């Protein structure tokens, strides 16, 4: 099945942003970034796609139809780093450029993996953020997304690494729980953490659903000020809790930039400006350049920290 994409004259390049699932503010913002890049590039049609529930199988089905309609490039935030490999390989064999972003695919299944930030940077930063909030002491719980979420799991590993540093000697991570990215379960798990560890000082929730639900749980349980919360959250969703002090600070990279950069990288790959080999420097518009590192991993930057002072500005954007 060696289908090659024929040159298409002045047809716009079809570049797809395939996200974990629809109906999530983070990815809607990613889509905006894609559109921005497309407008800037001119010859690109940006397509936003995702299954209605976050499953690898749903993404695979969509990729099959993308292969059939001979799109030019796909950027994927993967629900499963392994399960997508056979189909993305098939896509690449059909001449489609495939990269992953946000939540990666294992190296065999894509050319470049654009990670918003280094897993190490994210993990370490989360611990620093909570330490600043709790005054470098106390028990910390982690509320993650699903137990299968690879990016979260990687970050959490780094959190455990970071906390070994002597400056955190009065802190310990007591437990990792999973809210499955569902509001009610995340809420319940957050309450559970507070019940189980009456002396709990803080919660890290490196997922937008989780940090939101945990903030609400802290507020409802009357633990505002006693239990700190940080994590990765969307400013527009977290504005309330950041402004009222429940969540002192939290971080996130800019999803608009993520969509923008992914689209830029794909355009460069499709038009043959670069091949995506290790060491390649790809110029990505207003974001400057991205360097392809080991295993095709490219890093966008350090997560941005939001607090009371700056959140309103960003809430208007994403």
């Amino acid at each position, binding site marked *: 099945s060696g289908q090659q994409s024929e040159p298409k004259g002045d047809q716009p390049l079809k570049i797809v942003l395939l996200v974990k699932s629809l109906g999530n503010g983070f990815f809607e913002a990613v889509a905006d970034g894609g559109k921005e890049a497309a407008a800037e590039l001119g010859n690109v049609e940006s397509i936003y796609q995702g299954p209605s529930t976050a499953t690898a199988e749903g993404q695979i089905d969509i990729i*099959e139809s993308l292969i059939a309609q001979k799109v030019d490039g796909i950027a994927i935030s993967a629900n499963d780093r392994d399960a997508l490999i056979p189909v993305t390989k098939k896509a690449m064999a059909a001449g489609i450029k495939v990269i992953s972003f946000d939540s990666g695919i294992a190296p065999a299944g894509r050319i470049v993996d654009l990670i918003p930030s280094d897993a190490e940077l994210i993990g370490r930063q989360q611990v620093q953020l909570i330490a600043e909030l709790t005054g470098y002491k106390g028990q910390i719980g982690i509320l993650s997304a699903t137990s*299968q979420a690879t990016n979260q799991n990687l970050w959490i590993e780094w959190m455990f690494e970071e906390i070994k540093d002597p400056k955190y000697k009065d802190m310990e991570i007591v437990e990792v729980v999973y809210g499955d990215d569902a509001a009610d379960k995340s809420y319940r798990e957050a309450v559970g953490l507070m019940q189980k560890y009456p002396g709990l000082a803080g919660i890290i929730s490196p997922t937008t659903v989780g940090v939101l639900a945990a903030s609400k749980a802290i507020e409802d349980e009357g633990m505002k000020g006693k239990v700190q919360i940080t994590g990765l959250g969307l400013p527009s969703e977290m504005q309330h809790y950041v402004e009222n002090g429940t969540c002192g600070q939290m971080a996130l990279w800019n999803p608009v930039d993520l969509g923008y950069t992914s689209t830029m990288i794909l355009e460069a790959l499709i038009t043959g400006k670069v091949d995506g080999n290790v060491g390649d420097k790809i110029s990505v518009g207003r974001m400057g350049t991205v360097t392809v590192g080991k295993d095709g991993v490219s890093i966008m930057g350090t997560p941005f920290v939001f607090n009371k002072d700056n959140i309103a500005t960003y809430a208007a954007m994403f």
Partner: protein
Amino acid sequence: MEIDKTLASSDRLVDENKRLISKIGSLLARWEGILVLIIIGMVIVFSNITPYFLDYFNLMNATFTFMEKAVLALPIIFIILSGDIDISGAAIIALSSFSMGFASSHGAGTAQVVITGLAVGALAGAFNAVFIINFGIPAIAVTLATQSFFRGISQAILEDQAYTHYPESFSYFGQGYIPGTIIPFELIFFLVLAGIFAYVLHFTSYGRKLYAIGNSATAARFSGVPVNRIRFTNFVLHGLFAGIVAVLLTSRIGSTRPNIANGWELEAITLVVLGGVSITGGKGSIVGVILSIFLIGYLKFGMGLINLSAKVMIITTGFLLITAVLIPVIIDAVGRRNKLKMQRRRG
């Protein structure tokens, strides 16, 4: 006299027309007729919108996206036809895929891996059957619980890890093509299975017994039909087929995680009821289900081709499900009324 004759003949003409209409009507009133019509409509629409739809390669390749659900639908036909239900299919797939990954990571070859998957699937089906038939707990209740139970086992052991190493040749089942063609193995495999199911259901005594049980389990039992044995067999068959699906799916995606095939049980059940199998048992045909499988499969594929959002897709399938049931009801009602009218006129 003359006038009378013409009247009579025109009357006959009207009758002929009516008969033709009622013939079309009765074809439409048959579920399969409706499905065929919808499929034709779908093909016309899609082939006008996008050049990629009526493309032999694409049509073949698209089947990868729905053949596994189609295979899972086959035993569900038997289960629903005999008045039962099973919503643990996807969970059995997870458990069975997990056990295959386990076997493979302990050095099993392709044959052993496959046998492991099928055996675990069949065992899980038997587990359901024991609770449903031997202990008499309603099927929906049992499979609701085992849905968490089966998937829970694989999650408890596998945690956040995945099995990603399978023997080289294992990938053929879910990714391979019939040698020398671009026809996916999965497609042919499904068609063969569907043929066997159709034969069993419509031509054998086993099929007769299934219908009898679905219509009246008591009367069937009094007539010497081994009701419980057949129901038991159905659940084991369902487990076994979930195991087969696990083989195909695991092979296609080359890895196993506990959340594999999430939500597939409802999709497979949807295919079966859309295919005209009465949810209360005793009514339905394989042909209808095969049509609904290809209808839903290609509909989703076609909507994907024109990049319709997933939200439009779920709304469309929802409406399709309801209208497909509504149309025959309406036609039937109209048909009945006409028939009665004609009867009354004839006296």
